[in-house]
């Protein structure tokens, strides 16, 4: 994992640590799964897309990202996948 991805992973973790008024005190890392570990739902994925749009100040192709995951048979979104996607489209936000 390069530095940019690592920084972006931490950024995503910060978003997800208290997302949708739900907390998660367990360990979070690049392999933590959005649905399987954090317990979020498909609606939450849509809201996550909106949250990221707002956080990075631009309309991200989140729908395409989800379709890509589905097309390659992924059943969940790993934080690392999300960080990779974000790295392709934005620069990490200063926290």
């Amino acid at each position, binding site marked *: 994992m390069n530095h940019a991805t690592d920084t972006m992973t931490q950024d995503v973790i910060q978003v997800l640590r208290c997302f*949708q*008024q*739900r*907390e*998660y*005190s*367990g360990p979070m890392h690049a392999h933590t*799964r959005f*649905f*399987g*570990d*954090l*317990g*979020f*739902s*498909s*609606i*939450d*994925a*849509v*809201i996550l*897309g909106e949250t990221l749009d707002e956080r990075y100040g631009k*309309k991200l*192709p*989140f*729908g395409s990202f*989800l379709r890509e995951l*589905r097309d390659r048979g992924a*059943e*969940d979104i790993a934080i690392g996948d999300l960080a990779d996607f974000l790295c392709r489209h934005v620069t990490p936000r200063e926290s």
Partner: protein
Amino acid sequence: MTAGTAVASAKNPLWLSELFVLRGDNRSELVEQVRSWLAWLEASEPSDQSWDLKDLAFTLASDLRPGGRRLAVVAATRTELGQRWRTALERLTSTDCQQIRDAAGIYFTDQPLHPQGRIAVLFPGEGAQYLGMVGDLSAHFPEVQEVLDWTDTTAGDARQSVSRFLRYPQGVGESQRSAAEQELRKISNAMFSVLLADWALWRVLDRLGLRPDVLGGHSVGELAALWASGSMDTSKQLTTIHETMLTLDQQEVTDPEASAVLIAVGTSRGTVEEILNRLPRADRQVQGTDAAYVAMDNCPHQTVVVGLAPAMRHVEAALQRGNLIYERLELSRPYHTPLFQNYVGPMAKMLEDATFLKPASTVYSCTTAQPFPSDPREIRELALAHWYSTVEFTQMIKNMHADGCRIFVDGGPRGNLCAFIEDILRGQSSLTVAADVPRRSGLTQICHLAGQLVAHHVPLRLEVLYRGRNPRRIERRSQVIHQYQAVMSQFLDTQRQVMHQYLGGVRQARVSVLPRSRTTRGRISYRTPLPLSSVSAAASSPAVLELEPVMNRTAPPQAGTWFTHVTHHVPGREWTAQRLLSLSEDHLADHHTVGGRSVSLVDPDQHGLPVAPMTFTLELMAQAAQACVPGLVVLGLKSIRLMRWLAYYRDDPSTIEVRATVQPTDAATREWGGSHCVRIEVRDLGNRAQSPKPQQGLAASGEVVLAPQRPAAPQAGDFQLTNPRSASVTLQVLYNNLFHGSLLQGVTSLDRIGEREVEARIRVLPRDQLLASQPSPQFLVDPVTMDVVMHPLAGWHLEQPDQTGRILLPFEVQRVELFGDMLAVGDELLVRGGVTQESTRHFEHHVEAVDRTGKVWCRLTGVKLWRFYLPFSEVNFHGPKDVYFLSQEWPAALADERDTDLTDFTKRPQQPSVAGPAATCVRLEPPADLQQSAMLHATALVTLAPREMMAFHQLRMSDADKLRWIFQRIAVKDAVRIFWRRTHGPRLFMADVEVEIAADGRCTVSMRDPHETRPMPRVVCSDAEGLIVALATYQPLLGVAVTAADDSMQPPACIQDCVRQATGRASDTWTWATRGTHDSCMDWNGEPTESAASVVVREPLRVRMTRVDRWQVATLLEHVEISEL
């Protein structure tokens, strides 16, 4: 039909995690509890095999008392539990933490939503299914296994049963699993499997004791809601439904151009409708007819659009252009659109064949977003219309929230509805929780569900989680102290559970009351027939069916005189027997009625709740001990703890079980002079209304000390009173404030009262009417005389200037010493007692009785009485109900300093020829102690007329609504009683005034006495946030309404409620304008305005809005003539 990402994970049938619930009266006490248990956990050796997580979870669940602040943690290992408690501790000690909702499994809230918030259970439809859903629950919940077995039976071939999807095993190869998933997507399998899972989970929730106020369903889940409400018969309908689903399968078409396309779009209904509207008409039509519709409004972030394939290609292209997140669903029928009307035939037939009944609880329609009508024909029509109408889930949830629902349970598989609801109610006060999610084992998710609900004070039967798992209770050293302090709260908690079941209506009891008989070497085990006097009760009571004799039973040994049903005996070691608590036998209980006596003029025999006196329990214990070790005499009893009342139900007697076990003779017993110590446990096995719960029904425990002979009675010592004076309380006042009938009234004089002492005289009362079958009962403790010995202590309390918290009931006795034999009827005893300790929740007393020779007959030490806090009227709560008022008169609602005599209705006469005020207004804040189950039951018995009592028994609503039901009536009765007394003179009993409150809140009152011909006053009643106000008047236009000051309900709405109640006219017939303001008081005058030309009624009214404490009170003062304005 919900869209979700499939994240099916393996389900494990084992208990992977446990639920740990801690409680404190407040947050700081909760923090102390967490610290204390965490310290204990950390000090515990990891290798200590004497307990496991299940034992700890069980121990904490057993100790859970109502209310307070609760922390629920779900953890799988000791290490994980410690980590979560530490995380919780960190959060709880932070001042900015108001709640914890940690997906890892930590739940806490500072603002519990129950009981103020109503509970809704929602059932999902097709789309929620996944392989292995629910199946692992069958390992623990036989209710789930029953559903699966039933499905197999009806399918004939278990391999073809839909249950195979529910119990799909883990570890199956990917290709095989993929094929099974494909098969599960078939419409018949998808819909039917979800319905089965909905039904199985509903059975689990029901077993856990969850009692929702409302139900609802999404798409086909609506059928599950109708089943759960009792509107449809499950067993008959499931088969038909499956057949219908199979027909739908056959209708699925293969021609892609003729089939429908369903797309779930990650945006709101408004956005989707805008996209559809922007499409050229030709693009969204097929053969000139609209062919694309919004089919499901799931939430602001999901809308399902459905249409025929040609039109949907244009829709999909538009979604792509808008960069919207969407997903095609693998279905091909245009469900929930007008296009489906062509295919609705099988559904129509299924519903036509179904039997519909009026729902037992409110069910919301996902078509209208309103409650279903009660007419079965209309229910059927609406249920059918759902299939070709838009799923209005968003609006339905909004309406439920507006109707007071705050807790939403997704009662089906996957938990997708939770996400919808959270999205719909974003930013509003609510809790959503799923009964099942694919990522966790079913049992683990049940722990998470229970934890979140318990944190919000939702009553649950947590003991269900440990059923059949043989949990052991963990006794910490420090915990013993907590238990000691909490014993009465346990008592109340148990009573609450009993009342919860009682209020929930008469349930079919489980078949077995007694454990199955086993014959073990050296042990005699048998059952005996019921006595003849109980045969009729047994015949009508499933709960006692197993009391029939078993084959080859051995005759029981001679037992104590009160027991005839000995069920187990190991001579000299163990002895168990049962007894029916029947009023036809135990006449003394009819003279010991919690709540009071003679509570109606019309029916002087109407009394409170008959319960066994504590001394009756002591007699049971003594007899059991002597039966266990015959030939010895009873020296006394020690460590007596009373956990629940032994109540007598006139038409449905309970059975109690008394177990005696000989203990090793300890130093305390030897010091007392005893040779044997026998531990006694008295359990309430329940009746028909209460499922028997032998493990939960511990009513009392204690130890009986036996010896070959009793030592000589000691000479009584000196008894000093501090600043003694004569008693001012008369015997009439004493017994007016107790609930003892004539068979138990034995005090002959209250002689001297000291600062902390009392001296009195009593006499031994006749015993021939105490027990029906025993005109000359032989007692070991003499329960009646022993009970009377404690009455002078009540006299001491009545002499005290502050009567706050002096409704007293015993819960513990450290030591009862018996020195004398049974006394002769009429013998006199000198009683001397006093108070040794007191706190806000208890008094501790000592008392002894001295015979005429100067020798001590008995001595009780460490007698602890629990303090109940109830308003003290002319008498206390147990006193005569014609002079007792639970409500307080509230003249402030009718007048304030600005009022003139014209509008001060507390002063203004109603008519020149009639005395009394124009109106009486009362306020009632139901005391917390009266909301405890047994006290509430007693309250119902002494305040309700028979017709009201019958209605009370038939209520099918939440506990909160039941409390509201009864306290509203008490407030109305009090208002009428005060008004009547001032207007006509006579005092009325609460139980002689009958109140009816219609669904729209309008009240009517009538007299139980058919000879009363004077007109009854008009009454209005209103309540908000724990305050109930009631007004009684003969005036045609007087009213009162109340709302919480911080409620979102605006003042005009409150006023309109007030006017609607007082006038019976719909509020929209009035217009309102503000006139003037005041810091605490505003006037609102209705005036016709230009914009209200169509208003039907234009009479001006004067309504005063007053803020009192945390409430706003609207009082409709009167019809004011226009000339006065």
